[in-house]
């Protein structure tokens, strides 16, 4: 492949020379092709009732994690190169001209800058671990090669998403990951619910994609370009600060991001998406794909900086989602559902962060969340795996994912327990675990804004001042953080503590997972501990105590991402020159720690895993709040009644009434009318001479009249 290297800005030159960036993207695609062929061969064998060729099962175990490993190594190498080089401008690697039409020039090009490299690292790194996990988790499934193919394809699209150098290319990845998500959610398609869930995910995502498309259209109509470099260079020139156009663009982008990152009102697909295999949930629906919205907002930071009210909207949406999803997670019994709503909630945190302009905090939380949530999901996968084996042995039909059927599992799955415990402490925000630092930065940003030091503090939305909003955000996020700690504690308690609620027979089949699953668990557990240490800001009170732990120097992530955020900073500096210096207060940090600890403690003190019955024995929630939360505020039902139902009824009405009887009816009616008129006219042919003579005379009279008058 011809690689044309070009430097986007003329001066000064970058000294960064990437190593085969295209290969990082291409490798998963190659993996997809190989695994895809294997899967077709395998299924063909099955459908012909032949023995499945063994290589079709073995090959994916090597190829799928293999390509990921190579890609990860390449990403790491590039990362170090970039770290050691001068990078003044994002480096854009052009491959070919993709959509040249008039003044529209979209190239197939990759953009390498700190942000995309960081995302690549997360994707390939976490992705590789999950691939390895999947080898153990899915090997017994008849669709194993297909699964691996999809997973590789997903990584390919995810890399296109983060590395693409223009909005359209990002959109390619954007939709591509949606596709893979669809395919993987519906992986066990024979079960109708799974197929439905996949469909739901795709369609809801498409609503978001609509927003993305609209944003691109407006951008192009105003700027005449869609490549990142040009857009971000020209946007501050073309768009008025806080003007309607840029606000519209950002709101549409928000819609797109909300779809992909499961924010209100488009979050409904994510909990259903748990229908897919658990490693999928870990990779796609926790660590990578769902964070694409966050990535997109950060990537478009320049635009969002230009539209403060839109930014504030992003923050508010994120906050509401964080609280809302956390409430639902409080009452779920399905272990994956808890994690799913937790993910939605955590994504809300990230949104709140990037909305408030705390881009680094957003990315930071994205990264730590990728670690601990992937770890939690994989742990849940290990639990489910074990439960399945147990239940399978006795042909029990009990739900392997229902926490009421678990209990006391720490004795049977110690490694899993410790990994998950580390992740739980991380998500609860207990220092020095990863989540503490990132979540603290997020909530801290709200308090800073409330103090008037944020560009959004001066904005008025819905008649309420920005700083008030920020206070609201801070309070709500704190509440969400408390709930997070609580429901995570609840989950851990019910799963790993108390008496074991599986039957005797099943219990003997519960055992720890194999090494291919253990290693990723351990690695991710470790990352959940240390992941936060790469961004320990020594200027923040209390956090500064942890400075010795810092990896890569103090506030390394801040420094690393700084080149990416030059654009928005310049916008703010130009438009809000008198912004006060942000001031971190110690009480905020203390509050955050207190909330985390309190949440876990509350769970520990008030929940009694010993008294819990199995799913069959335990009664449903009878109190109104419990029912409301358990049934997810009935949002799915409301959507069904208010949007989907009427829409389908309308469709049916269009089809069976409007199209059939009005549009087509007019056409057929014209035909029938002609026939009727013809029959009527034919009636004059009575066969009677007198009639004919009379008709003739009538004609004569008419003609005579016409001539004589």
């Amino acid at each position, binding site marked *: 492949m011809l690689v044309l290297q070009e430097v986007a800005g003329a001066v000064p030159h970058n000294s960064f020379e990437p190593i085969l960036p295209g290969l990082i993207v291409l490798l998963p695609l190659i993996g997809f092709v190989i695994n895809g062929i294997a899967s077709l061969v395998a299924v063909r064998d099955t459908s012909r009732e032949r023995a499945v060729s063994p290589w079709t099962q073995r090959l994916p175990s090597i190829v799928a994690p293999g390509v990921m490993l190579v890609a990860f190594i390449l990403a790491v190498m590039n990362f170090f190169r970039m770290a050691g080089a001068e990078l003044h401008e994002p480096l854009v690697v052009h491959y070919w001209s993709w959509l040249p039409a008039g003044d529209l020039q979209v190239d197939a090009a990759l953009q390498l800058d700190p942000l995309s490299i960081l995302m690549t690292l997360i994707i390939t790194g976490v992705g590789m671990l999950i691939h390895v996990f999947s080898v153990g988790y899915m090997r017994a499934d008849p669709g194993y090669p297909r699964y691996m193919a999809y997973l590789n394809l997903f990584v390919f699209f995810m890399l296109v998403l983060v590395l693409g150098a223009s909005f359209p290319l990002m959109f390619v990845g954007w939709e591509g990951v949606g596709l893979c998500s669809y395919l993987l959610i519906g992986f066990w398609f024979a079960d109708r619910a799974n197929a439905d869930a996949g469909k739901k995910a795709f369609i809801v995502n498409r609503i978001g994609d609509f927003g993305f498309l609209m944003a691109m259209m407006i951008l192009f109509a105003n700027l005449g370009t869609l490549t990142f470099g040009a857009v971000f260079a020209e946007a501050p020139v073309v768009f008025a600060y806080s003007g309607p156009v840029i606000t519209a663009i950002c709101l549409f982008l928000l819609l797109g991001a909300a779809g992909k990152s499961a924010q209100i009102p488009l979050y409904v697909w994510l909990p259903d998406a748990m229908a897919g295999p658990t490693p999928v949930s870990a990779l796609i629906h926790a660590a990578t794909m769902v964070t694409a919205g966050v990535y997109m907002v950060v990537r478009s930071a320049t635009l969002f900086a230009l539209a403060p009210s839109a930014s504030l909207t992003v923050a508010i949406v994120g906050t509401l989602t964080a609280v809302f999803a956390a409430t639902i997670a409080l009452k779920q019994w399905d272990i994956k559902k808890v994690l799913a709503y937790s993910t939605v909630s955590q994504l809300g945190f990230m949104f709140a962060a990037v909305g408030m302009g705390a881009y680094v905090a957003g990315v930071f939380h994205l990264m730590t969340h990728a670690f601990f949530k992937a770890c939690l999901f994989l742990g849940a996968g290990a639990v489910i795996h074990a439960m399945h084996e147990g239940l399978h042995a006795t042909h029990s039909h009990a739900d392997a994912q229902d926490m009421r059927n678990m209990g006391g599992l720490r004795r049977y799955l110690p490694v899993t327990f410790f990994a998950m415990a580390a992740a739980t402490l991380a998500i609860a925000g207990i220092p020095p675990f990863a989540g503490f630092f990132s979540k603290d930065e997020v909530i801290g940003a709200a308090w800073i804004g409330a103090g008037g030091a944020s560009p959004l503090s001066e904005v008025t939305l819905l008649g309420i001042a920005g700083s008030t909003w920020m206070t609201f955000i801070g309070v709500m996020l704190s509440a969400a953080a408390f709930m997070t700690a609580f429901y995570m504690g609840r989950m851990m308690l019910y799963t790993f503590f108390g008496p074991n609620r599986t039957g005797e027979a099943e219990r003997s089949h519960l055992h720890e997972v194999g090494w291919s699953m253990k290693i990723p668990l351990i690695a991710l557990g470790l990352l959940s501990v240390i992941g936060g240490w790469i961004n320990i800001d020594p200027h923040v009170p209390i956090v500064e105590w942890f400075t010795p732990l810092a990896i890569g120097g103090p506030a390394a992530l801040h420094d690393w991402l700084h080149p990416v955020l030059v654009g928005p900073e310049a916008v703010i500096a130009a438009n809000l020159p008198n912004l006060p210096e942000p001031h971190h207060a110690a009480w905020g940090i203390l509050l955050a720690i207190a909330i985390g600890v309190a949440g876990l403690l509350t769970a520990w003190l008030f929940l009694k895993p010993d008294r819990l019955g199995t799913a069959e024995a335990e009664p449903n929630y009878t109190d109104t709040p419990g029912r409301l939360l358990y049934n997810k505020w009935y949002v799915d039902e409301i959507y069904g009644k208010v949007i989907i139902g009427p829409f389908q009824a309308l469709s049916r009405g269009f089809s069976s009434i409007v199209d059939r009887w009005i549009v087509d009816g007019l056409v057929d009616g014209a035909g029938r009318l002609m026939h009727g008129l013809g029959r009527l006219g*034919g*009636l004059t*042919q*009575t*066969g*009677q*001479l*007198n009639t004919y*003579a*009379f008709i003739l*005379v009538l004609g004569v009279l008419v003609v005579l009249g016409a001539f004589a008058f």
Partner: protein
Amino acid sequence: MLTLNIALALSAILFVIGVAGVIVRRNAIILFMCIELMLNAVNLAFVALSPYAGIQGQVFVFFVIAVAAAEAAVGLAIIISVFRHAESVDIKNFSLLRW
């Protein structure tokens, strides 16, 4: 001109009587007689006009009478032919062909 007008008026009246007869009668022969009446009405018009428009008018009448004779021969033959099938000359019986 009075003569002409009387003749033309009579011609029109006879013509119209013929027309009305064709509409109202069912007996094929009488129908045919009505048509003959119409032809005669036209003849009258020709003759009446010929003093003004020229002698061709009368020549024309001559031809018309010849045509009437030919039509009478053929027409009555047709009526006979029809009568053989239907045993009737009433045209209400002739509606095999309709609609």
